[in-house]
């Protein structure tokens, strides 16, 4: 009890110090000792797009990240130090994300950043953390973040990357001679996914019959449908995210494309399936980092789901949400091993960490800091086959963690 009171008091003083430092207009950088808080709480900054088209996914990320923090605190913290999560809305905007991240680093003195959702915004955060030498666990899909030109030794990429995701989906859904038509969101995520699919297609021998780039955030896709139909594909591959996914699939189905072709997406999103009806998504195949249904085959998934249910009134964790959990958990485990927040020690600990907190064994590859992990391929269930409101998908493939599905370190530009 007395300890609690003392902690509160200490927090209070530290906050005042920070305010005072800002108030006098003095650069915090010039007087780091003032703001470097007296208390030893580990602070983790968490920028994520709480408002905007990815809001549903972002909120799940926060809930999962909070769960990871709570679990560590309940066990007495990381080596006795409490952990605090500082969530900020990056509004799905690179500039906003960079500003919030800088604030978290300079003003809130965070020890590490986890978060951001959208490949482009994530790269903006990566620029800041790289320049400031701050640890960053990124939890949104990106291939470029692995490449040598964007690589930062402080950055660990917990999310899947398009090469892994599109590769797993293509290996499952494409065959030699399959005709694929691509509908792609015209920004980093779409372009990277398209590249991933084409790379896999080249190996498999599947043919591209057409590519249409659609503007990001489009609400109406009707004008693309006649051309997609005229391509006569076996597979319609739709590489976009968030609400764009729900809208484009819905309209493709309205236009009868499902009778003609199978719809395949790189990432089949839990929340977007919920925003549309099961009839629309029925039979759609896509990749995923996590699906709660894994619990029937994996003890770590069961443990994660149960803890999440207990903390969130029975709700289940979702795909992008789970990144918040695996990302924060891996970081805190590494801090525990490193015995604190010393950046170099935590980097070394993350590089040699083996963790299994939700989806089977994972580890960060040394050269590019990509998390080597399993990739799920899911298929959206028919309404009649659903055993409950959350029984959305069946797991049709589970590619085990392997560096073989990644681009090699030399291919990414790292010295051999």
């Amino acid at each position, binding site marked *: 009890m007395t300890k609690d009171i003392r902690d509160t008091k200490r927090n209070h003083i530290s906050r005042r110090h920070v305010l005072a430092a800002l108030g006098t207009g003095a650069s915090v950088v010039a007087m780091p000792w003032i703001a470097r808080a007296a208390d030893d709480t580990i602070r983790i900054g968490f920028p994520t797009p709480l*408002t*905007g*088209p990815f*809001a*549903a996914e972002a*909120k799940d990320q926060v809930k999962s990240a909070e769960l990871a923090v709570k679990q560590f605190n309940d066990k007495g913290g990381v080596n006795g130090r409490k952990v605090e999560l500082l969530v900020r809305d990056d509004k799905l905007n690179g500039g906003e994300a960079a500003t919030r991240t800088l604030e978290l680093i300079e003003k809130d003195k965070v020890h590490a950043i986890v978060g951001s959702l959208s490949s482009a915004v994530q790269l903006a955060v990566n620029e800041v953390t790289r320049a400031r030498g701050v640890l960053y666990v990124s939890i949104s899909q990106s291939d470029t973040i692995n490449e040598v030109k964007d690589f930062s030794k402080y950055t660990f990429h917990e999310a899947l990357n398009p090469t892994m995701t599109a590769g797993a989906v293509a290996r499952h859904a494409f065959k030699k001679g399959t005709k694929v038509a691509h509908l792609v969101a*015209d920004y980093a995520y779409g372009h990277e996914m398209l590249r991933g699919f084409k790379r896999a297609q080249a190996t498999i021998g599947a043919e591209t019959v057409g590519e*249409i*780039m*659609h*503007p990001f*955030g*489009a*609400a*109406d896709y*009707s*004008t*693309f*449908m*006649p*051309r997609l*139909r*005229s391509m006569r594909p076996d597979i319609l591959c739709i590489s976009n995210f968030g*609400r764009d996914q*729900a*809208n484009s699939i*819905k*309209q493709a189905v*309205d*236009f*009868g494309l499902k009778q003609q072709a199978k719809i395949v997406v790189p990432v089949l999103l839990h*929340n*977007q399936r*919920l*925003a*549309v*009806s099961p*009839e*629309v998504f029925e039979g759609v195949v896509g990749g995923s980092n996590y699906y709660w249904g894994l619990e029937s085959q994996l003890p770590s998934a069961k443990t994660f789901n149960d803890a999440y249910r207990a903390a969130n009134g029975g709700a289940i964790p979702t795909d992008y949400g789970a990144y918040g959990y695996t990302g924060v958990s891996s970081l805190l485990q590494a801090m525990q091993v490193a015995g604190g927040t010393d950046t170099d020690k935590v980097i070394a600990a993350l590089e040699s960490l083996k963790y299994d907190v939700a989806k089977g064994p994972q580890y960060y590859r040394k050269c590019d800091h990509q998390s080597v992990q399993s990739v799920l391929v899911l298929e959206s269930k028919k309404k009649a086959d659903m055993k409950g409101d959350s029984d959305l998908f069946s797991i049709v493939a589970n590619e085990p963690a392997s560096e073989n599905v990644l681009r090699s370190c030399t291919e990414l530009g790292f010295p051999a």
Partner: protein
Amino acid sequence: MDTELILMQLFSGVALGAILVITALGLSIIFGMLGVVNFAHGALFMVGAYAGLWVASLTGSFWWGLLVAPIMIGVFGMAIEYVLIRPLYGRSIDDPLLLTFGLSYVLVEGVRIVFGSDGIPFPTPSSLTGVVDLGVGFFPIYRIFVVGVVFLVVVLLWLGLEKTKFGLIVRAGARDPTMMKVLGVDISKVWLLVFGLGVGLASLGGVLSGPMRSVNPEMGALVLAEAFVVTVIGGLGSLVGSIIAGLLVGVVISMTALFAPEMATIVMFALMAIVLLIRPQGLFGKLA
């Protein structure tokens, strides 16, 4: 490029244009008669979609949603006019613009609080699902139904404004409100009804769009931009202008989607810029 595809694309453009017409009409009517630039138009479109969904789920029928929601939200629009817009008449045009801009934020946040920010499925009514063969390709029945509804609304509006006494008063009121007052017409009542009508049209657009797009709190943001582009191209305040411009923009978007799909959104802004350079008052607008 074969003719069938081009014809199909043309038809998709007209169908998309019909949706643009219904979203632009309400904005245009309110500006034309009241001189109010309604920045809450997109938000009211979204609220309309939610209201339609809500009524449809209560009654179990899409048709009740389609019928009742626009009336409900239209009445809500009248309340907005009476309480918020009315005190601002006679002031600069920016005042109601800023007020409705703020109102749009309130509406979006309100819906987020009540219905959540995740989006809700709005299934296509079962009698209108499926596709129909147009001879040159397949087209969803529901979208053809929307074109029909928009056509009906346009005809009713035209009859109402051109052939009834009320329409005469509205048109005269838009031309010279002072003279109407002198003649003993209670112009404020007319404005109340016109604002309600504009908002009702916005929400009808929302209900009609629900089964084509997912229903979510941000669905109105792009609609506001589209409606503005269409009314500006057509000429602010011109109903005929809105109709022609809506169809034109739909066809231009559709043709761009065929040849340069990534430009499909930006092309309407380019079109607007060109029209403004050549004819600043818009295609059917009158110079002030």
